[in-house]
């Protein structure tokens, strides 16, 4: 597909050029900074010009009614989040089901089905009070027993996401409106886990009737599932009995699958859809220069990094890893990967995240890197390989840039771009690689990232092991005071900066783009689109 990308690039320049001409003629009402710079400015994506857009827009009084068409980036394939861990599934089921809690735009945890909760003195028992009068779409009232059943299925042997509940001892339903979750060990991330895509509350009878939830969805959320045609669309209809007063405003959602970037952008520009998720990063300037389109979004929490197989020579030598960290120029990676729409970082968090260690992004230090490499016994460098995802250009392009940068200290790396299944097998499971350029999904709680550095964990695909870090990770998980937790995580990040199991590169921005008559939508940095329930059409 590389050739295809190049061709598309060409067309985007044609598009950008055309738009610039039009603006120059004075027809564009919203003259953007990018377009005003002329053809060069429009094509070259001035860094920082389009970083962040207001998360919530002041949009006036909501008008109910209308169906919103949204261009989706990927086909969900199925609708059962316990059988596959796939963001595209989440982006459908989050509208249909409810969870106990939800992640608010500021990434804190707020109530959804749970009205309130109490945490016991020792931090091991969470008691939730459920909202009253909530019904499933099939009309049956939702009771505490449903929550118990849902978590049993979530944690069952056949669930691919059961490890989320590793710290849960039991879930009990003493009466219809009370749920008690007992933990094996204190876990500060539990409330955000309860807001995750897999923590949906499902009716037992629907699972039993259909075998699983792959092709059915009966929840208690703002929208009712009507139809899913694979690779085509998902049709959702307003739930008139939804428990949040007055919501949703829309009569329905039509989630249209538009996997191709060009098609997705074109669909929005031409009004085939009203909104697109994952606005293609190379089209941001183009979309911005269109006065009928509004963008929402900012930096995501997904981290992109270079990681080392520490079970292999020479990457078991900390000096080699430090040398590579010194030579990498993160700014140079941002352009070819995310067209400047990202933020460089040296720690595995966005710089403005509450648990992030404040650390400068250093300029590359070639001399220092050479000295370290010489000290490690490789004054002239060595030969190695870089493995990365062929499917994701934001990672494979980073790998190409890093391959070039490593040549400065004599490291000749062969590029090994592989398809997803091979990547998961070789890099993320079997330690069958030297250097990998890879990434994580978005997360809410810092523990979800930190666990990747614990000895023997499945996410620890670099083979890193430091007893002190293991200890701190446990402490961080158990600590519920956010300031104390941040302090623990900063200690871990300091150690990681010295020992370099990962060289963190950047966090990418994520945008939703919509026609200006789409109002009330709020971007959430986890990538969730659940605020579509608060969205309305000003038509």
């Amino acid at each position, binding site marked *: 597909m590389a050739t295809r990308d190049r061709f598309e690039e060409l067309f985007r320049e044609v598009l950008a050029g055309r738009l610039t001409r039009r603006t120059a003629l004075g027809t564009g009402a919203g003259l953007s900074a990018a377009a005003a710079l002329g053809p060069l400015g429009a094509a070259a994506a001035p860094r920082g010009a389009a970083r962040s857009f207001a998360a919530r827009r002041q949009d006036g009084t909501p008008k109910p009614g209308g169906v919103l068409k949204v261009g989706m980036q990927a086909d969900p394939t199925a609708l*059962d989040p316990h059988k596959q*861990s796939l963001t595209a599934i989440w982006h459908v089921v989050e509208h249909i089901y409810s969870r106990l809690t939800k992640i608010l735009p500021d990434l804190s945890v707020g109530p959804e089905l749970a009205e309130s909760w109490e945490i016991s003195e020792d931090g091991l028992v969470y008691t939730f009070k459920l909202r009253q009068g909530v019904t499933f779409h099939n009309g049956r009232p939702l009771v505490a027993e449903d929550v118990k059943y849902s978590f049993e299925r979530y944690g069952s*042997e056949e669930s691919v996401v059961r490890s989320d509940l590793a710290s849960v001892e039991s879930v009990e339903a003493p009466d219809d409106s009370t749920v008690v979750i007992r933990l094996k060990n204190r876990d500060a991330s539990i409330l955000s886990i309860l807001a995750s895509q897999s923590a949906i509350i499902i009716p037992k009878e629907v699972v039993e009737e259909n075998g699983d939830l792959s092709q059915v969805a009966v929840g208690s959320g703002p929208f009712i599932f009507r139809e899913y045609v694979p690779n085509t669309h998902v049709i959702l209809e307003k739930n008139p009995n939804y428990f949040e007063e007055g919501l949703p405003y829309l009569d329905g959602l039509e989630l249209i699958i538009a996997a191709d970037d060009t098609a997705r952008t074109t669909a929005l520009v031409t009004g085939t859809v009203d909104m697109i998720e994952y606005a293609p990063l190379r089209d941001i300037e183009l979309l911005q220069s269109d006065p009928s389109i509004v963008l929402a979004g900012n930096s995501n929490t997904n981290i992109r990094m270079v990681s080392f197989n520490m079970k292999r020579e020479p990457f078991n030598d900390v000096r080699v890893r430090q040398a590579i960290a010194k030579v990498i120029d993160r700014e140079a990676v941002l352009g070819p990967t995310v067209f400047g729409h990202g933020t460089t970082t040296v720690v595995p968090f966005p710089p403005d995240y509450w648990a992030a260690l404040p650390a400068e992004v250093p300029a590359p230090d070639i001399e220092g890197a050479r000295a370290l490499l010489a000290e490690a016994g490789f004054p002239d460098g060595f030969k190695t390989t870089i493995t990365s995802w062929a499917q994701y250009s934001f990672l494979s392009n980073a790998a190409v840039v890093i391959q070039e940068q490593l040549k400065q200290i004599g490291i000749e790396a062969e590029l090994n771009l592989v398809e997803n299944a091979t990547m998961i097998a070789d890099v993320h499971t079997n330690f069958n690689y030297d250097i990998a350029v890879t990434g994580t999904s978005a997360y809410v709680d810092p523990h979800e990232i930190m666990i990747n550095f614990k000895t023997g964990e499945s996410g620890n695909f670099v083979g890193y092991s430091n007893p002190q870090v293991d200890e701190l990770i446990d402490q961080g998980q158990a600590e519920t005071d956010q300031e104390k937790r941040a302090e623990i995580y900063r200690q871990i990040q300091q150690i990681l900066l010295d020992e370099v199991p990962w060289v963190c590169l950047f966090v990418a921005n994520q945008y939703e783009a919509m026609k200006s008559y789409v109002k009330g939508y709020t971007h959430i940095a986890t990538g969730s689109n659940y605020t579509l329930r608060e969205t309305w059409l000003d038509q």
Partner: protein
Amino acid sequence: MATFVLRRLALLIPVLLGVSIVVFGLIRAVPGDPVSIMIGVDQRYTPEQIEAIRRSYGLDQPLPVQYVKWMSHVVQGDLGRSLRTRRTITEELGLRLPVTIELAVLAGLIGTIPAVTAGVIAAVKRNSWLDYGATIATLIGVSVPNFLLATLLVLIFSYWLRWLPPIGFAKLTEDPVQNLRTMILPAVSLSMPLAAILMRNTRSAVLEVLSQDHVRVARAKGLPASTVLTRHVLKNASIPIITVGGIQIATLLGGTVIIETIFGLPGIGRYIYEAIANRDYPVVQGVVLVISTMFVLISVAVDILYAVMDPRLRHR
């Protein structure tokens, strides 16, 4: 004729048996595992948990056992279920096969009729500007990759002219107008290489026949030019054209991956591509088997057409 057809059809059995073994083995020989893809890279798990899930899908059994189990279902017409979507493969094919067949038929129509016409004209008016024009058009048609053409068409007809939607497929049975609106651009992009190859072949086949003695005789005895062309030239030139056309149309069935992705069509090309990427073993096996069957059937159909066009072939 009947025995001829039956003999050709009997060939299906060994071919499909061979295909089934090869595809069953190959998809399991490539690295990667369906269960770890379902789990993804961000989930924590232990080897025991993976084993438990593998067991639930029957993937822990020895390969020969899995193969025999699968085949025993296949011969009863049951292709099994997708590991990922848990739909039956027959159900998925019922949705996707019509889309790809419609696409192939449309592309076939758009491709063959003008191409054969242009090929004949180019041969008859050899070395005229018509011939050169057709040759240049062919060169462009063969050289321009269909993904580029597809992107161009989206740019022109969706982005600039806004005549056709870039996405938004609807089933033929439910909304034929919308269906056609979303099918035209992909069919055109798909048909271009087919048309180009077919035009070249038609031109050279017609040229070859034109230079033969019986054509000269026909002209010498005073038959009108149009009769010479239809009765003596085209009939003889049709064999190579049918051969190439048949193979090309069969190839369309498998060659629609990129086009289906760009235009968001739920066809079979994209389905199998995704199944391979996710190591969805039953889907890969089932779909390859169905496509092979269709491929063989199309070549049998082409053979029969030969026999109709050329009586000498019936007795071989």
